[in-house]
């Protein structure tokens, strides 16, 4: 297992203090006609080299907006990063110009993979064309032939059998799992430092998911890639992530080592999420909607704890937003209940 690096103010430093990616106090707003949606409202996250961070939450929790903020691909024209910093390899991405982002960051150092194998490849271009494309965008392809060779190499790296024969095939000629591998090959073509894998809300074939995760692990071992896995499913996250951050209504409510999150969930929301998974890695997973109630509107969010209206342990103090309490060496939770445990 690749060593994990976590940010732990006040705790013992187990690993290098400088993570690959560090997000501090990120606030991303969507300016809509009916008001400003505070989609991401003060989020801190960190990812170390070779680490996989799972960002878990239901739709509307701000997890996808967080990942789009990192890529600076917020929906135009309403999306805007209002505050905070996103530091990757010592550079604050928030301050970069759109041109710089496109030229030397997107696809080059950060890349993204949408996990829906059926739609993530362009149906009218051959696989060979698409796999090598990121190299072309970033001026890394010397010639048509070398591009072809690189494409073969990439396909081989994601374990596609006899890649040289398949370069001129089109996506529809590949199975779902193979397509997912091709998309993966595209994402790692320029040897990025960080990969964001955004899981679609639609149901995905479980076997493909498992294949994906294995592929991720291998890639990570080979390249030291940092991965952010965006998912609504704690069960999925358990299988692949080193650390997990649970998001609710634009904020991180709990973060920690994957074992801590599963064995000692400190936040009632995390507990509810876990309760919605009957058996880890087996059985039929229920959707997160199993928790009664609805997340609050992010246009005018309540000042107190945002989960309070749905929380079984609600108490008067929840009218104030709880700070993040340290509940274990690498484990934090934003809940008054955790104060006692800290």
């Amino acid at each position, binding site marked *: 297992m690749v060593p994990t690096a976590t940010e732990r103010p006040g705790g013992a430093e187990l690993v290098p203090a400088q993570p690959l990616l560090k997000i501090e106090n990120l606030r991303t707003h969507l300016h809509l006609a009916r008001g400003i949606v505070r989609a991401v409202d003060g989020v801190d996250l960190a990812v170390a080299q070779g680490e996989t961070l799972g960002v878990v939450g239901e739709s509307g929790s701000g997890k996808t907006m967080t990942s789009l903020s990192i890529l600076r691909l917020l929906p135009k024209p309403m999306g805007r990063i209002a505050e905070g910093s996103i530091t990757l390899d010592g550079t604050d991405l928030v301050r970069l110009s759109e041109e710089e982002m496109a030229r030397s960051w997107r*696809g080059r150092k950060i890349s*993204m993979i*949408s996990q829906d194998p059926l*739609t993530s490849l*362009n149906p*009218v271009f051959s696989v060979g064309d698409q796999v090598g494309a990121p190299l072309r965008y970033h001026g890394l392809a010397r010639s048509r032939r070398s591009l072809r060779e690189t494409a073969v190499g990439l396909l081989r790296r994601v374990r596609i059998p006899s890649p040289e024969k398949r370069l001129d095939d089109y996506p*529809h000629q590949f199975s779902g799992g193979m397509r997912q591998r091709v998309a993966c090959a595209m994402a790692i073509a320029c040897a990025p430092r960080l990969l*964001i894998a955004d899981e679609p809300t639609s149901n995905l074939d479980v076997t493909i998911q498992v294949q994906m995760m294995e592929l991720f692990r291998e890639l990570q071992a080979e390249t030291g890639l940092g991965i952010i896995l965006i998912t609504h499913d704690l069960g999925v996250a358990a299988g692949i992530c080193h650390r997990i951050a649970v998001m609710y209504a634009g904020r991180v409510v709990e973060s920690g080592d994957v074992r801590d999150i599963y064995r000692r969930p400190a936040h009632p929301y995390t507990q509810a999420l876990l309760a919605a998974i009957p058996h880890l890695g087996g059985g039929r997973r229920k959707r997160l909607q199993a928790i009664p109630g609805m997340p609050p509107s992010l246009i005018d969010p309540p000042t107190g704890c945002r989960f309070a209206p749905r929380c079984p342990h609600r108490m008067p103090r929840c009218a104030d937003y709880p700070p993040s309490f340290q509940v274990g060496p690498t484990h934090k939770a934003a809940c008054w209940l955790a104060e006692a445990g800290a």
Partner: protein
Amino acid sequence: MVGFVGKRVLHGLVSIVGASILIFVISRLSGDPIVLMLPVEAPPHVIEAMRRNLGLDLPLWRQYLIFAGHALTGDFGMSYRWQTPALDLVLDRLPATIELAVAGLVFSVCLAVPLGVLSAVHRGSWIDTVGKGFAMLGQAMPGFWVGLLLILVFSIRLNWLPAFGHGGISHLIMPAIALGWYPVAAQTRIVRSAMLDVLESDYIRMGRALGAPERVLVWKYAFRNAAVPLVTMLGVYFASMLGGAFVIEVIFAWPGLGRTVVEAVFSRDFPVVQAGVLFTSILFVTCNLLVDLSYGLIDPRIRRDG
């Protein structure tokens, strides 16, 4: 694949045969073409002889079979007016019409594609509004009137372009615009909505996240997908050009099939009308067929499904 092609070709043949029956039956509705061919004072026995001679005393279905049999050998009869075989006349005029229809199609596509793509990319902006306004106007202005206005402005006022005739590019510009005018609106709409769909797709989002320049995303990755519905409709538009050419050719005195047929209608020159309209239909069906068969080139998914 062979089965697919065969089925489409058969489909096309049935349509053409059907069209020929329709045209034949309609042109017999007027009653007796003899009346037109002989002087009014012709004695009844002469009329009777001529009728027998031309096979007009036979039942309609046999007349059709004879007509179809002759048509298959390229014999549509002699033009009453020009005294030349109707087919020769039609084939002589056909290239000019195709030239015009192609030019009209090129004009409309060249206008509709950028308009549709830019409207989709800048959805809700002034470009989108202009595109929509243009499309609404396009559908409300008859092509032949656009042609007349073009003549008024560019030939009579400015004296830049020749008002009529057939020759170089300068003769082609105005008729092509007048002909291509009407379908621009529909084509823009098709391109725009297809682009909107495609731009939302995962592979475009992924391309953007992997650093693809916006120009490449829009014009290469998205457009190639969005072009599929437009290309599938091109045959229909080409056909609408052939239809529209009937009016536009008259305005610009374009020596094509359309004007010839219109003139033939006036002189009740049925062989020419039949041959001309049937040829237009054959062209029409052929285009649609070619479009069906060429889907695969632009959208590889269809190649296999067939």
